[in-house]
């Protein structure tokens, strides 16, 4: 260690640093530190001459470590790393001391600032001694993708990938493609044909030579890591397939809320209380009748069935309002003399064209009745003189009145909920679920399709309730991620990651659950944990937690940080 040849470069940043920090004092001080071969102070280290100076010194003085005391590493670390690389030494042999943003710009006492700069420079010198050469590595990327779920999201992603020439295995539990959308006839707000858009996609998928569709199939197990997954799939009753894939897209969709759970709506008990999907079928078949075979006159849509109610699901299912409005239009088209009521809480008509659709539904004299969140309308039998099957009683909040409306057909706008097998899927592909059972994305804002498991993506309603455009966009976004990885052929693994020293790991599994990216694998046979470096994001959580010191985080090793601690303090104690 003592024979290190360290170069220390103190940037004046014009006067930005030099105005407050005595840069020459810093370089003079550094010169005397053990291992320091050269120390210089210069006007602009980041400028070309500045970088040239470093490069030249590395070559001529055979420096093997470099410290730059300048601005924040967040600004110029890449610049100087490049300079080291140009000079022919490992770019990670660099350490920066931030004496601008965190020193000269925030202090006006020149002495104190210079002291601080000295301490920081000292720490950097101490640290850089322990820097190790790190290389970016690459792992293979298998171009095939496993898509779970043959609904609109799965179909879209499969098509995007296969159109780009990449193989896809599309696994669908059912015996046909289309998922929940196959049950829908028209879509809100433009009343376009869902059937056409599905027919188009299904046909393309089936005709694509790159897509292998596995119907009546389920994923049995998934092993490996990004770029190198192996999936076992059960096909049909007793077939089995093992496929190697580089990425997995989970697009398993949703299931509808079971309206039976809200007993007082009487679904399953009252003949003319139906779910939205049942009305959808009536409309699609052109047979809109009560159970008794009568053409209904009064339709009541009850919104938020199972949604926005803490007893069932606290969240909004996002599409039901627009679907109910759509039914309003459809009913008036199929039965021009019918009356439609919408019993709603808040009208969620937020998409493109949706507010307009809402307005037009209102213009068609759909009667909107607002009930309060936390309450529910009540369905009661009609009297002998009524010309309807049932009456709905509701505390209507916009008028403040208790009112009743006649109804022949009550339509329960059932919300979406996570599928019953979501937990199994989550476990198989090691992703997490939120409290409602939806799969959790890597970052709600900036990474809505990735998961914390590298190489596993989610799209569509398995992530959260959403409409068709949202599902399609997400599916394509996931395809973009996958294509991005495939198109580079290899997966670049950052040089900085955590690694387990297997000779020291005792398999205590303390770390296993800590990694948000599931980068830590436990091998039951050897009783050792292992960090999949391709998946690791180098946060260092496991490093800090490992009670046996078996995990080390590259470029942020205990050794390096200890030296830094000693560096900032030792100097200070000797000076002050």
């Amino acid at each position, binding site marked *: 260690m003592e024979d290190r040849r360290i170069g220390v470069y103190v940037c004046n940043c014009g006067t930005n640093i030099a105005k407050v920090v005595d840069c020459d004092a810093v370089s003079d001080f550094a010169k005397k530190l053990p291992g320091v071969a050269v120390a210089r102070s210069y006007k602009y280290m980041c400028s070309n001459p500045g970088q040239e100076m470093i490069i030249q010194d590395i070559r001529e003085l055979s420096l093997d470590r470099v410290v730059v005391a300048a601005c924040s590493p967040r600004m110029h670390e890449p610049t100087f790393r490049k300079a080291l690389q140009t000079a022919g030494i490992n770019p990670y042999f660099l350490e920066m001391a931030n004496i601008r943003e965190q020193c000269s710009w925030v202090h006006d006492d020149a002495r104190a600032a210079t002291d601080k700069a000295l301490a920081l420079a000292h720490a950097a010198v101490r640290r850089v001694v322990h820097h190790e050469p790190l290389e970016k590595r690459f792992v293979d990327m298998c171009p095939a993708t496993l898509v779970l779920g043959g609904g609109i999201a799965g179909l879209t992603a499969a098509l995007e990938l296969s159109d780009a020439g990449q193989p896809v295995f599309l696994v669908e539990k059912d015996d046909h493609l289309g998922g929940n959308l196959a049950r829908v006839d028209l879509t809100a707000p433009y009343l376009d044909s869902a059937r056409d858009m599905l027919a188009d996609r299904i046909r393309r998928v089936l005709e694509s030579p790159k897509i292998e569709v596995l119907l009546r199939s389920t994923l049995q197990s998934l092993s490996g890591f990004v770029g190198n997954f192996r999936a076992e799939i059960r096909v049909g009753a007793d077939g089995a397939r093992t496929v190697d894939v580089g990425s997995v897209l989970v697009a398993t969709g949703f299931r509808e809320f079971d309206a039976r759970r809200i007993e007082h709506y009487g679904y399953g008990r009252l003949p003319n209380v139906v779910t939205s999907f049942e009305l959808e079928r009536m409309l699609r078949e052109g047979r809109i009748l009560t159970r008794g075979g009568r053409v209904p006159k*009064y339709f009541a849509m009850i919104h938020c069935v199972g949604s926005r109610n803490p007893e069932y699901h606290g969240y909004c299912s996002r599409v039901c309002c627009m679907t109910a409005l759509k039914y309003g239009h459809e009913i008036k088209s199929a039965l021009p003399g019918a*009356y439609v*009521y919408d019993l709603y809480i808040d*009208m969620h008509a937020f998409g493109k064209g949706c507010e307009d659709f*809402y*307005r037009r539904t*209102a*213009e*068609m*004299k*759909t*009667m*909107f*009745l*607002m009930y309060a969140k936390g309450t529910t309308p009540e369905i009661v039998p009609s009297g002998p003189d009524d010309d309807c099957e049932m009456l709905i*009683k509701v505390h*209507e909040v*916009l*008028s403040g*009145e*208790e*009112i*009743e*409306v*006649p109804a022949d057909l009550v339509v329960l706008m059932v919300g979406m909920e996570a599928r019953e097998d979501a937990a199994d899927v989550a476990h198989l592909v090691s992703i997490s679920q939120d409290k409602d059972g939806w799969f959790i994305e890597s970052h709600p804002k900036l990474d809505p399709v990735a998961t914390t498991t590298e190489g596993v993506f989610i799209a569509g309603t398995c992530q959260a309730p959403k409409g068709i455009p949202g599902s399609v966009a997400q599916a394509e976004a996931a395809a973009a991620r996958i294509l991005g990885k495939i198109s580079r052929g290899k997966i670049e693994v950052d040089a900085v990651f955590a690694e387990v020293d297997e000779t020291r790991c005792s398999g205590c599994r303390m770390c296993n659950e800590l990694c948000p990216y599931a980068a830590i694998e436990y091998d039951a046979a050897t009783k050792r944990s292992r960090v999949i470096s391709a998946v690791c994001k180098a946060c260092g959580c496991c490093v800090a937690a490992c009670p046996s010191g078996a995990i080390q985080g590259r470029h942020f090793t205990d050794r390096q940080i200890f030296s830094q601690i000693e560096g900032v303090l030792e100097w200070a104690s000797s000076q002050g």
Partner: protein
Amino acid sequence: MAIRANPRLVEELEHYGAEDVAKCYHCGNCSAVCPFSREPFLFPRKSMRYLQMGLEEKLLGNLEPWLCYYCGECSEECPREAEPGETMMSMRRWLTSRYDFTGISKLFYRSWKAELAAILLVALLTGAGFLLFGFRWGGGHLGVYAGEGAFLTTGAVHVFDWILGCVLAAFLGINCARMWWFSIGKDRTLRIPPLAYLRQAFLLPVHFFTQKRYAECGKKRPWAIHLALMLSYTTMLVLIMFFLHAMHSERTVWAAHGFGYLATIGLLGTSIYALRGRIRKEETHYKHSHETDWIFLILLVFVAGTGILQNVLYRVFHLDVAANVVYVVHMMGVVPMLGLEVPFSKWAHLAYRPLAMYFSELQAEAIRERERAVAAAGAPLPA
């Protein structure tokens, strides 16, 4: 007890001009911008709501439409163009038809052809009647307009006026009584002490003659126009009912005629202004016109025009024959206008609106009293 909603009412109200009420999504903007809306009468949103839901009973007892003077601010600010102002107007028409026990009003509002036919019929009957009277029974001459031997004697006309007036007052009185019943009488929860009726009675003439509430609107011109029209009309009514002799005298009685001319000019001017407004549709409250509005305005212009024409013909040009003919024609306008418009159509509001001001004050007082009682009893106020 739950009230039954009726999806058909909103369809029915279309006949009365409420075409856009279904568009309302209840943002509450209108009630808040309305210069007249104040507790406990929050309108127009709430009335719109009752209408959307078809709560007929609620609407029938609702005086709020009468508290609205259609200044148009609500409609201007409505984000959905649901035309709350026009909806209130339509509700006034509907209420008029409901107060009217004969059902004639309903017929007129639902069919402008029926109204027009009725007007023509009454006009023809009136014309025929006056001609018969003039030529046969009155003993006058077509060549004499005023004084001795006049074609239509003042006395006879005066008697006719009073008979007509009494008939109209009877109709209107019954309708007003119905209005009271719907809005106050039927509601058992409202306790109004008899004295309160007396105490607040001053509101009737005040609102009748000043429409002072209209003046609370941000824009003053509509109020001024309306006031001019109302005062002109009232002046004319007083002149005709009480000073017909003076009006009819051979010489010009400026004390009467001065007012007469002023009132006629007022009537003509304001109604022409209103007609022009309804054609141009620049002002919000003129944007939507029901057929009955046109009929009424045309009648008004016609009556005022013929009224002044006969005067001018007689007094300026001394053309007695022409004046008499115009007089008959004038009466053919006046009688249907008064006979049909006052009890059964638009003109009824001259009675309903001051009454509504009066009743609503009584209601408000009773509501406040009830709330005070509830508060005193310690029960929580409705949130």
